[in-house]
Every structure is written in C-alpha cells, then in structure tokens.
C-alpha cells in the first residue's frame, strides 16, 4: 500500500478513528490499532474495539492498493506532530513508513486478519438536523455514568415521545433529559440505549456539518456524520423508570439568572474541597451559597433570586450542580425543590424541552 496526502487529512482521520481504538489492556492487540484500506484514491481509516467502530473515508493520492493496521496512538501522534504539507505513507510486509519533509518514521505494523470486519447493519436511515442533535447531546451525554459495573447507566436512552425524540442519561445521582420535538427516528414507544462513548464521538463531529443520518438496527446503530461513520453496539437491558423520579409537585421554586449563579458557585466551591457540598440557603431574601470545609475555612455569597416557598437549605455536589446549570438553555432558570432529601429540578424559565434532576447531598 502506498499513498500521499496532506498532513491535515491524515491527522484528522487518524485522530477521529483512534477514538474507537481499544486502549490498554485490550484482549486482542490488533484492537489497539488503526486499520487502513486503500482502493484507488479512496482511503478508509478505521478504529474499532468491537463495541464501537469509527470509520473515516478520505481522498488521497493513491499509488498502490492494500491494507495495514498501525498502532493507533502512535500513528495519530506522529501524524499530528508532522509539519503541514505532503505526507507519504508506504506499507511493506510488516513495516509502515510515514515521511514528510525531512521527517521519516517507520512503524512495525499489526496483523490485519484479526481486525474486526466493518459491517453496516440493515435498517432505515433517518436524516436529522445536526444543530438540534448537537445541542441535545451536549446537554445529556455528560450525565451518563462512567462506571462500567452498571452498564445500563453508561448509555443514553433514545425514546420516541408523542411529538418527537427524547434523550435521557443518568448516573443515578443526576439525570439530564432533552426533547427534540418534531424529530422521529423511532417507532411508537420504541427505545434504544446507545453507549455514551459513541455519542461523545458523534457530538464532537457535529460542529462541522448541517445534518447527520441515523440508522437503527437490531443490535447496532450507525451514525453518519459527513465522511465519518460511527457504528456502535446497543446496550441491552431495561432502563430505570426515569419518569417516576421526576416529582409532580414542587412546593418551592427559585428563579435566578443562570450566569450569576454559575459565577457565584464557581467562587464558593473553592472552599468545598474533598466531598464537601455547597449549601443553597433559600429564603424570601433570595439565595445564599455556602461552603464549609472543616479545618480549611468557609465561603458564602448571596445571589439575587426570586424565591417562592418555605425557608429551605439543600446541599449539592458543586460539580454536578455546575454541570447542570452550564447546559441549561435559558439565561434565566428555575430550580424547584421539595425538601433537603428529594431531587431538585432545574430547567430554563422559557424552555420546556430540557430538564436536569439532581439528588442532594445529605448532611447530618
């Protein structure tokens, strides 16, 4: 195999595809590699850990067809470090060389036979506007769990709602939910559970395109974003009953400027070290934030707010609270509470498509 291309083309293809490559401890060494396949001027760059496959299609100056697997991180790092300009890639029996200007690298290749075959599942393709999906992913994916011992929660639930598509993610401490009205990719009452890792890759690509297509198979989903295809296995299992978590009734409601509260939170949290929560003291006077860490010190700040309800203090993990406020769509937000042990609901005052549910920190 032999081809030439611009460094930027190779750099991007390798960095995008390597997000799917297995990191350390892979069962099969070849899964830590990037598969290159050249046919004419079309180069397919694929990373895969079996559960997630990312394939980038790019145009290069092809000279000799062939395939090879390069160690993913190393190849991506090399392409990224090279000066911009032409790169020539040549692959021999068990060695690949990358040359650009005065730089020459040769790399031992991996055996391509064991690399997973790229197969697209059968199913109907649906085209969606990239901006809506990008916003939804941005708001929701971060709330999914990173704990592999509860695989269900590492996924983002895509559910058909009456008038659109719903995204839900929770790590059991907080839950983020976003509706995309007028969007339908699922049949009535259908749900799929997509690994958040795959959606992170998708989300990062959406800035460069106007639309994307989604194809849902039985066990897999394919996202096509421009010249990148993301194939992911779906998570099997029953998602927790998230609807039951959302309280119907909130006796206490706080309305506050989002950025004012964010700024204050970021200051006060400086004194909330380790596992110390930030306390929200809500009264008719407004909102006071407080952090007290034993043997370290304390911080407090008042924030202008409209509060309707009985005097109440609720403590939250500042990281989770900030994460929720940051993705809240309106400039003004409403924080609704029941008591110090029940989840708080955060949403935009105008927007009704987004909701962030956060469990407090119990302080006894």
């Amino acid at each position: 195999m032999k081809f030439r291309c611009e460094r930027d083309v190779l750099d991007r293809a390798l960095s995008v595809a390597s997000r799917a490559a297995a990191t350390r401890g892979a069962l099969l060494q070849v899964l830590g590699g990037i598969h290159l396949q050249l046919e004419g001027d079309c180069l397919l760059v694929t990373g895969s850990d079996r559960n997630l496959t990312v394939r980038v299609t790019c145009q290069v100056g092809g000279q000799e067809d062939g395939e090879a697997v390069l160690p993913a991180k190393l190849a991506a790092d090399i392409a990224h470090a090279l000066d911009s300009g032409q790169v020539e890639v040549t692959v021999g029996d068990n060695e690949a060389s990358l040359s650009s200007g005065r730089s020459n690298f040769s790399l031992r290749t991996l055996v391509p036979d064991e690399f997973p075959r790229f197969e697209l599942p059968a199913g109907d393709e649906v085209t969606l506007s990239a901006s809506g999906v990008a916003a939804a992913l941005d708001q929701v994916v971060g709330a999914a769990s990173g704990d592999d011992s509860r695989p269900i929660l590492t996924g983002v639930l895509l559910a058909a709602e009456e008038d659109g598509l719903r995204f839900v993610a929770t790590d059991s401490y907080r839950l983020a939910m976003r509706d995309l009205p007028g969007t339908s990719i699922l049949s009535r009452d259908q749900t799929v559970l997509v690994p958040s890792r795959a959606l992170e890759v998708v989300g990062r690509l959406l800035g460069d395109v106007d639309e994307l297509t989604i194809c849902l198979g039985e066990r897999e989903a394919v996202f096509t974003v421009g010249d990148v295809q993301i194939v992911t296995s779906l998570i099997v299992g029953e998602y927790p009953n998230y609807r039951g978590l959302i309280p119907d009734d909130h006796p206490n409601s706080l309305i506050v400027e989002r950025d004012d509260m964010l700024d204050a939170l970021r200051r006060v949290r400086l004194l909330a070290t380790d596992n110390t929560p930030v306390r929200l003291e809500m009264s008719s006077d407004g909102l006071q934030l407080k952090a007290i860490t034993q043997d370290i010190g304390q911080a407090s700040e008042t924030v202008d707010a409209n509060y309707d309800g009985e005097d109440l203090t609720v403590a939250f993990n500042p990281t989770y609270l900030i994460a929720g406020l940051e993705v809240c769509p309106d400039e003004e937000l409403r924080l609704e509470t029941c008591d110090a042990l029940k989840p708080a609901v955060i949403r935009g005052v105008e927007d009704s498509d987004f909701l962030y549910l956060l469990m407090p920190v119990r302080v006894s």
Partner: protein
Amino acid sequence: MSSAGSSDTAAPSAEGAASILHVDMDAFFASVELVRRPELRGRPVLVGGTGERGVVAAASYEARVYGIHSAMSSVVARRLCPDAVFLPGDHAHYGEVSRRVMAIFRRFTPLVEPLSLDEAFLDVSGSVALLGTPLEQATEIRRIVSTEEGLGCSVGVAPNKYLAKLASEQAKPRVGERGPEAGVGVLVVRSGEVGGFLERLPVSAIWGVGPRTDERLQRLGIRTVGKLAEVPEHTLVELFGEVLGRHLWRLARGIDDRPVDPAQSVKSVSHEETFAVDRTGREDLHHELVRQSNAVAGRLRAGGIAGRTVTLKVRFVDFTTVTRSHTRVDPTDVAAEIVETAGELLDGLDPTPGVRLLGVGVSGLQDASVRQLRFEDLDTRTRRQAERTVDEIRKRFGKEIIGPGSAFSSSDEPRPDAGSRPWGPDNISQGHEGHEGHEGREGREGA
C-alpha cells in the same frame, strides 16, 4: 536533636522536648478477657482461633512463659502448653474496650493517633502546662487505664513517634526465668539520650527492617543500631537504594519527623478468616464473603464511615496470597454493595486449588454523614435501610439473631456473624474451657 515533629513548638519541658507518647496495651485481648473472667488470672490464657488452623491473636504473659506468642499457630501453642485456656476472640467487645481506652487518651490531648485497637501515639506537648510533664501524664494515663478498665499498658516517651514506640517496647513486662516480670511501665528517652538508647538495640528493632534487610545487615557485620549509625549515608544508599538507604540512615540517628495525626486513625476496616477445611467451591466462598461483608459493613456503619475501595484477600493452600482491589464510584457502608464488588473480584480467581483464608476489607474511608444521595435512596426499601434495621435488631437482641439469608449455607451450620472469629474457626471437638460452643460468645456470662 530537634526532630521531634510537632513538639518542636512545645515549651521546653523536663523531658527535653520528649513529648510524644506511644501507649501500648499489655497483652490486650487476653487482658480484656481476664477482666471478664477474673477466675482465670494467673493461668496461661490464649485468645484466637482454637481450631486446627487457627492462630494465636494474643497470649497472656503467663502463656508467654511457655514460648507462646501472637501469630503462632494454635496447634503449636497447644503443644507448648496443653493446659492453656483457649478463648475464641470477641472482636466487638475488644473494639468497645478499645474505644473507652482511646477516650481516656483524649482526656490528655486531642492529638491521638490510634495504630490499632491496642496502641496509639499521643502528642502531649500542648498539655504540659495544664497537666504536667509528659512523664507525669504517662504515669497518670497508666493509673487511669488501670483503675477504670483494669488493664495494664506500657508507655514510651520520646521526641518522636519512632523512638516512643521503641521506648514503650523496652518498658513492657517481660518473661523471665521465674515467670512474668513487671516492666518499668514508662520509659522516657530525652533528646540527649537518643544515641545511647539506640546504640545497643538490634538492627531488627528499626521500623521497616524485616527479616530480609536484617539478614543483609547481619552479613555486613552490622548487628546493632549503633553500628549502623557509623555507616555513611551514601554507602547505605548504594547498598539499599535511595529510599531504604536514607530511611536506615535517618532512623539509625533517631530522626523521624512524622507528626501525630489524629485523622490517620482508621485507614481500613476488614475481616478475614482461616477456614477449618480448605474451600474449593465458588458458592461456598460466596457465602463466606457475604458473612464477612456484613461484619465489615456493620462496623463501618457503627463508626459512621464509608469507603470506596473494596479489597479481597485470598490465601491458597500453598500459602500464596493474592489481594485484589476495586475502587467504587462512591463510598459504601452497605454489605450488599461490598459483596457485589468483592464478588466480582472473587469471580476473577480460581478457587479449585483450595482456599485457606478469605478476607474482605474496605478502605479509602470518609465521613459517612455527608453522602451524595442517589435516586435509589428515594425508595425507602433500599438495601442500606434494610441493613440499618438489622443493625438495630442486633443491638437490641444480640448478633446471632439475624443475618442475611445467603450467609447460611447447607454445608455449614448457621453463623451469620463473621466478626466473631476473625482468627480462624474454633475447634468444637476439644473441650477446653471457654470455647465449648461454635459462636464465639459462649461462656462469657460468667465474667
């Protein structure tokens, strides 16, 4: 020598800045038993696993006359002294007594760093003006522990933790030719006396010198700490590497600047058990795991702490020991969660060669009173709630009244409380006084 940690700032005292105390209870478990059973006083008493595979957890000084010491196999101990009274351990009770003893220490200073149930470091530099010299405080501590708890302890007073611990060792009761002999009780090593105190001690007395390092030092002709102090630092670094070399050089001079840290009090809560018969079945081991996890979780909740890291310890028949840890996303004090994590670790091991010992522990501890709630907590029938209820029931009706169903196995008699026999199973067939039963609690009523 001015390496006395936090005592540097202390007002000069008669002890020459020696204001770190190491208090070590004398034959703690055995002595606690003797308080409950005064009729056994003067007899050789052993606490520990009484079965074929058990180990001695504590031996009274009368038992030590026979050459018995803790960590010795119970079988060997019995051979050395067939008349010894073997008592199963009662960890819960020792913990209770330990808490009271530590509370006595805290009357003298808030800077108490417990090392285990039966020893602690105290920094009394702040209480000299109020309560007297460190020597006077040490003497008073011994008096109070003796009158309030009926227990003996030995105290080392020195400019730092390392020297204080060495000093308490020298102050302890001994076993002489004619039986147990009282020790000095309190030994003070003042700054000016450090060289002379260390000089004659064997190198094995140095903290961190195990059998291996000891052997290497012996081969180099270095037998005493005094001899070691003559070796230049760079030579020790060449011989033992950067870390150990420097460590040896410093300790040979009595230098130790670790402060007494009360926050270091507990680093982990664990339980382990040596089986009477090697276990090979996964299911069998899982039952054991459930029992031990319940004991660990109960102790965590009693202490108001929770931890993120769950560690499983397995010793196979050939004595190879593996430990595996997993750090959970959030801290736990719930047995079901400990079982969940430790169970996964156990699944990764092959028990078929035969498992001799199983242990489970939780570390990475933090205050459980501050807890990030989960959506699951909205359901009042959570596992944590259930276990808390069990805690309550046990408190009122006794430990053996209730336990998790999976802690019972058909191949075994029911004994839900794993905490009662952390040093190996009791031998039911041998009719020695004090362990006629199998639950580790019988015979105590006579105390």
